């Protein structure tokens, strides 16, 4: 038991894992009783791994959000050649699943370091000015887009 406590304390000390060991040997009295009745403390799921720099050689997929479309349209456009969602007018459910996973991965990747949802308003009026919104313009896929996201590529 002591070994386990020590191991956990070592991890916690790094700041990676905010793990409180309930019922540890140092805890006594009422505090320990109260804690015994409680559930295990939640964990801060953290990582010290920074996102791989853009220069990483890992294969990646570039999604360009354009016009009024969202992540799904951008993912479908990126996968249009190898995983078209429609075959002769019929839906390919497996391709839809691939598009959907890529879209979801892109959405979360875009939001990782964002202070507001990364996907900007791309149509309609800006409530502050009453004028048509002006989303950012970034270079993407050889053209421009409102948002560019790069995520690991499917096989």
């Amino acid at each position: 038991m002591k070994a386990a406590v020590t191991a956990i304390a070592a991890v916690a000390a790094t700041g990676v894992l905010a793990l409180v060991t309930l019922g540890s040997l140092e805890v006594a009295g009422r505090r320990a009783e109260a804690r015994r009745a409680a559930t295990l403390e939640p964990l801060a799921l953290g990582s010290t791994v920074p996102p791989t720099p853009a220069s990483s050689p890992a294969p990646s997929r570039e999604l360009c959000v354009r016009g009024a479309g969202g992540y799904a349209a951008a993912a479908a456009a990126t996968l249009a050649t190898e995983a078209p969602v429609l075959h002769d007018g019929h839906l390919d459910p497996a391709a839809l699943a691939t598009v959907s996973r890529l879209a979801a991965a892109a959405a979360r990747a875009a939001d990782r370091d964002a202070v507001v949802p990364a996907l900007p308003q791309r149509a309609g009026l800006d409530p502050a000015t009453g004028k048509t919104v002006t989303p950012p313009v970034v270079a993407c896929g050889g053209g421009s887009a409102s948002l560019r996201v790069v995520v690991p590529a499917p096989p």
Partner: protein
Amino acid sequence: MWRLTERGDRCELALDLGWPEARVVVGRDGAARCAVAVDRDVLTPLRPHRAPPPRVRLVGTAAGVAAADRAELVGDHAVVRVRPGAGALVLDGDVSGPQVAAELELADGVRVVAGDPAAVLTATPGASLRLFRPDGTRWRRVAIDPGGLPIVGTSVLVVGDGAARRTWLVRGPAVAGGVVAPLLADDAGRRRRYVLGGSLPVVGWRNPHDLDRSLGLDGWVSVAAAQGALATTPVATPAATALTWHDPGGGDRAYCGTLAPPPPTEPTCTAGADDGVTQCRVALDPELTARLHDLTELVALQPRAFTGTGVPSTGAAFVLLRGDTGEILAEGDFVPGRAGSAYAPATPALGRALERLREDRDPRTGEPVAPGAGGESSAEKFDRHRAIAIGSTLKPLVARAAELVAPRLTSSMWIGVGATPATCRRRHRAVSRLLGHCPPTELLGRLERGGVVDFHGYLARSSNGFQAALGVLALGWPDGRYVLDDDELARDALLAIDVAALDRPLEVLRGDRRVVGGRGVRLGPLRDAPLWRRLEAIVGRPLCTLGSKRACTADGDRRDLCAARALPIAAPTADLRHLVALGPSSFDMYAPGGGDARTVPVTEYFQLLRGSGVHPVGSLAQLADAFNRVVYDPTEDGAFQLAASWFPAPAVGRVPAACTRDAARTETVRGAGGGLCGALRPGGTAARALGDLLDDPRVRLFGAKTGTIDTLADLGEQRRRCDAWNRAHTVADRPARAADQPYWLDCGAATPDDSLLVVAFAVVDRDDVVPLTLALHLERSGKSVAALAARHYIDAIAAYLVPPPVASSPAAPASTTAPARTP
């Protein structure tokens, strides 16, 4: 000391009082706003102490493909489902969002493989990993056998060293071979974590400063937990008919309107999972929801590619219910150009942004927004509770109500139109009278003029004339009276009638009470009529009689909470209701600006019957819910039991006979030869779109109804409003001209209609069937688009719920070749 700052076209005066700061903002247009800027982090400790809610883990449902997953690994930015037959994945710092894989490489020499019946964690000698399992109230480190460790229950895995160290919450089934419910929200350290982020906005947000102002399903569950209302045993939740909630603005209200769903037979929340955390499950399947959402986005943007017709939709939505339980398996919408949702914030920064948006502050700076600009931002918008024009999808509800009141009469009724219909004028145009009344628009078309229409044909081919006639005549069923001038007409003489022959209005009485008079419908007698009582029972909500549309709208807004009945809260705030309510708690047919509380013009009644946007009956979810009752609820008398639910619900519905090509035609709503099946058979309104599914062994169809409604017709005819619409629907990165703007209306010309579909079907899983109801709404897409698109939804749903069998990977030894990088 006042500080003056000029900000564009407004001027800000700030008085620093030490703490807080008073601000007066004056715009050039004269609008002024006064605000007191406070720091919530400073305020929170000053509030009366309230114990934090107990830890609750919110999970979804794994209904299809995901039900076979062996484990789920939750990291800081990624969540990976371990799925037999999926690819291989290297989990490095770049991987984000939901992923699936049969083989995972977590770090050098540390792998998880989708074995059978459990996933197996393996590590090469010397690999850096530490695994902790719950042991009472402690986390205990466990060793990993050389042959690997089956993943069962909850554990914490720390892999890598130094800069490459990562921590994973590893979630396996309670017993090997069991289902791993997908995680939606949980505590992580000191914050609430939403693993899927804004992709599933209805999950909402737990407000760390004021729990009662939390949002969505997570907010709801958190408040229920704080109130000790978690239904960890089924008996803790009373029957829905006894459930009420207190509304500060309106006294006590019923949770379930006119419905009487039974209490859950299984607990919504389970206490004492192996790590002691209470786990509450919602019915939503997040993976199915994501697929259908993305399909909705693609269809809305390019309807022609998916359906061969239509124009880009200005808003599209879907709802998928389980037919026998009412569980909401998936729901979502897509609005072109809308910002990413701020709800279910995936990071602390996004949580702060949501908090600021809810308080009308700039999400980046925290500054109060400018005068007049405090409305909902794009990222905050959430319209799914909005009542919509449901068009002809109202017909099955009226038809079923009439059939329940007098099945002999519905099966005997037919209408026709003579060569010289009586007419009246509406908006300078002649329209055919309907039983002598003047409708708001022409209700008799080629269908009615081309021959007689019976009850089956009314549903199969969608007769507006039959709907209007049934709506008037059936108010007198079974024992009412019919009067034309001073002459009384026999009830049965009106069962086969030229509906446009009368040039004076037919009146309907029950006893001495006039229900339908020459000019108006009296609401008191209407609500007492058997037809109307059954209609309110099917709709699930009552007609509002508060006297005006404005009063009814304010009173009912976001107050249909029946779907949350499994975890009742005594006094949910408006914030708590915001994402959870399925729609308004009532509907009405008051004329805008009308002053008579007890009588409405007959023309308004006709507007309601045609599913017009003038009197929208409910939201898309409420429509799906009502149609679900029409098809699956066996109730014939009294309150219906089948009701939509966010949480697991008992099966009370019954699977009806499936539609077939050769069943005898019947004058009924349901059944293999009934009107709803008629819609799918040759000549029916959904036949071209879905008829070939009658021969598809993967599915069984129980009925469908299409809807088309001209919600933008008036707007398109009014230049100023039309121009304003176009300004508000301009795509930013394209030239502001009609040829480049897909959402502009051609002002002065006809506007495309909204398109709807409700379809009840089952996915066949060997000898079992999974009954479902799907509702689709595509705003301004054009006629038939929803029905034609539904085929793709059914394909996606069938493939997800009944996937082809996959051979499980054997538990691979730790020394096998490392997998390639995959998503």
